[in-house]
């Protein structure tokens, strides 16, 4: 003690000068800190409030349309003749078109995406995942106009020539992976029910294979029925649905994979410890635990598909009528985004007309849908994280 004091002599006066600030210095320092804090907050708030600005400015130009023409025509009429005199602004077919295309995209993206996510997180080895993740990321980065170009120049002629086969192949592509996984899991479950522990693995393989063959046969039969379909135009809802589905795929895969990963080792190991097979663990533990995350993946996929502009503008045919029957993907449709993009070129010169404001009304609709989807997915993800913890 004494020696340390000798080595580091403490001089009380100097210490008090360096450690305690004078009142004035401390006040200025606190003031600058407060000002800096406020400036940072202001900048952050302004970037966060950009979304408020967007809402405000879109709504400001959308409201004159509703004041002028009311809600009823916009949402219920099927007559979309904005350039005619008198003009009519029935956006129902356009809403239906957006919905139809999104539905188609989801039908493509969700089975494939969730299967891929399950495979990546629980079935395939870790190395594959390391390889596939960057590829998926790159797929997500390809600009939408490149997808649109592909849809218009490469895919549309294909559909026009061989529409039935495209439909069949799409059906096989969509339905095979989920059915394969289902057969694999089903085979597992079946084998566990039927045989004892002795021949479990052989029985499992046999059961899986039989189930798979049955499923594949069914698939083939249904697919072959599609090949007779004739397509009159390549730019239709089917084309756009398939392309949009593939565009939404990376989102669906990565979000649902994250959800499955978030379930964690403990739950899986707990299930194994209780004697569950891998299939049982997957179907009884992992997927239920990740269900809300999977929901969020679907919602984000919907958002991606509904907000996409270039692909639908280039390849959906842009005919504003409701397909007959409503789920007929082989007819051309027109979507909200494509209408905004396509009509603004003409409406731009008449700023202030109903024709200009109706596009903002559509944008407001899109924005509202996006906001609702976003809120739901946030809630759902938040809840799933809380549940897993």
């Amino acid at each position, binding site marked *: 003690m004494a020696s340390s004091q000798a080595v580091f002599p403490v001089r009380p006066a100097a210490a008090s000068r360096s450690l305690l600030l004078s009142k004035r210095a401390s006040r200025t320092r606190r003031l600058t800190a407060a000002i800096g804090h406020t400036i940072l907050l202001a900048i952050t708030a302004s970037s966060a409030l950009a979304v408020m600005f967007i809402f405000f400015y879109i709504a400001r130009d959308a409201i004159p349309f509703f004041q002028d023409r009311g809600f009823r025509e916009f949402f219920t009429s099927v007559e979309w003749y904005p350039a005619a005199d008198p003009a009519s602004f029935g956006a129902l077919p356009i809403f239906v078109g957006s919905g139809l295309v999104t539905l188609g995209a989801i039908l493509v993206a969700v089975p494939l995406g969730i299967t891929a996510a399950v495979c990546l997180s629980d079935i395939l080895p870790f190395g594959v995942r390391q390889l596939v993740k960057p590829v998926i990321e790159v797929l997500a*980065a390809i600009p939408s106009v490149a997808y*649109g170009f592909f849809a218009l120049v490469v895919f549309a002629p294909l559909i026009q020539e061989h529409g039935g086969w495209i439909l069949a192949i799409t059906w096989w592509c969509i339905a095979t992976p989920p059915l394969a996984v289902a057969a694999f899991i089903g085979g597992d479950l079946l084998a566990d029910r039927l045989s004892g522990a002795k021949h479990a693995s052989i029985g499992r393989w046999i059961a899986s294979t039989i189930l798979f063959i049955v499923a594949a046969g069914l698939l083939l039969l249904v697919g072959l029925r599609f090949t007779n379909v004739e397509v009159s135009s390549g730019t239709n809802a089917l084309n756009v649905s398939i392309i949009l589905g593939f565009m939404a795929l990376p989102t669906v895969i990565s979000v649902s994979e994250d959800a499955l990963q978030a379930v964690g080792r403990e739950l899986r190991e707990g299930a194994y410890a209780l004697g569950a097979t891998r299939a049982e663990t997957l179907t009884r533990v992992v997927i239920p635990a990740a269900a809300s995350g999977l929901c969020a993946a679907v919602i984000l996929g919907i958002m991606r598909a509904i907000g996409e502009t270039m692909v639908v503008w280039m390849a959906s045919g842009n005919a504003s009528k409701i397909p007959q029957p409503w789920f007929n993907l082989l007819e051309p449709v027109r979507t909200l985004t494509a209408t*905004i993009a396509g009509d603004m070129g003409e409406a731009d010169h008449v700023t202030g007309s109903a024709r200009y404001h109706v596009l903002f009304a559509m944008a407001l609709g899109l924005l509202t849908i996006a906001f609702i989807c976003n809120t739901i997915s946030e809630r759902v993800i938040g809840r799933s994280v809380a549940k897993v913890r």
Partner: protein
Amino acid sequence: MVLLLPIIVGGLRAFVFRATVEHRRAVLELFDHGQSDAVAAEIAQATAARQPVFELIGQFERELESMSWSDRRTYAGPFDEFKDRLRKLLGPFPGDAEPALIRSQYGQTRWDRAQEELRHTLYRTEYDYSDTSRMGRPVAVPRVTDFEGTCLEPLFGMLERDLEPMLRPQWTFYWRFLFDKSIDAHFFGGIWPEMLGTLYLTIGAILFAVPMGIISAVYLVEYAREGWLVNVLRTCISTLAGVPSIVFGLFGLAFFINTMHVSHSKSVLAGSLTLAVLILPVVIRASEEAIRAVPQTYKEAALSLGSSRWRTITRVILPASLPGILTGVVISMGRAAGETAPIIFTAAVSMGRPLHVWQTLSEATPALPWNIYNLCQEHEAVDEIRHVQYGMVLTLVMLVLLLNATAIIMRARISRRLTG
């Protein structure tokens, strides 16, 4: 992958193709590239090879004049059509007045297009409506049947046989495609104005978005206390990330152009600002993650050395998280370069010259994504410039993929450094 294959194959054809003598002539006359004497010699050879064609045509014209009036009428129509086709294939005839459109001053510049044109020169398309239950099927009718028994008849065989010496195709690597300006609506030249426009828009967006994004991230991570305010801010940012891109375009039009009047009408500045709002959430999220990844011990060490909070952030935390932030910036550059919808109403025009830097404040520019759309939807001769469209798509996709690959590699480096 299925998507990329046709784009790569088709796109490469814009760069590597069998160029005819007309291509070399156009490049020499319009861009002043190439050796003029070599090209002149080639043109002389090609002209010599074409001589018999024009002689036959002159002969037929004389024959036409000596015919009876009704015969002349039956031949005149098909003959004019045939001559127009031939002009498209080989360029204007000797003795023609110089055409006004640049595209009609030259023949076909590419051998693949030339063969397509040759097919149209030799055959005309008629539709077969015999099966009434289906749409009319196209049938190719040889034009030679129109001129049977006249002196024009041998010309068709000659064209089919001797097109090669007339056009002299050679394999060419046209790297200038990237750096030439386009002439006559992309019939000649390259995509430099679009490249430059995309570059300006991307850099502009980064300039606006990155400072804002990093500051917001610093605030959210280092300063903000968890509470309702931060929750609201976070919700806003995630909602911003979910706004459809076309809505950004309308917002840019309504806010930056019609309300703020940053420029009289569309301009690079307005487009960059709109794109900046679009990529802001990406930048904020990436920077937030990068800042969070800096070990807590760094911060504690800096604070314990007596540095202030701000100094800790600028001297310790930001340098340590810089690679992560840069990764986010590179990814958002790719996003900004590829987006079409936001720039439709705020920045993009279909035709334009390359801009100087100071013009970006007030003038609109062509840009790769918009011009891809424009060329394959609204161009007057969509089929004739497919190679340009493919070339543009390939350039854009490669640009974006390159940026993303850079980001992925950078991130791998960082994680390796952080783990050991």
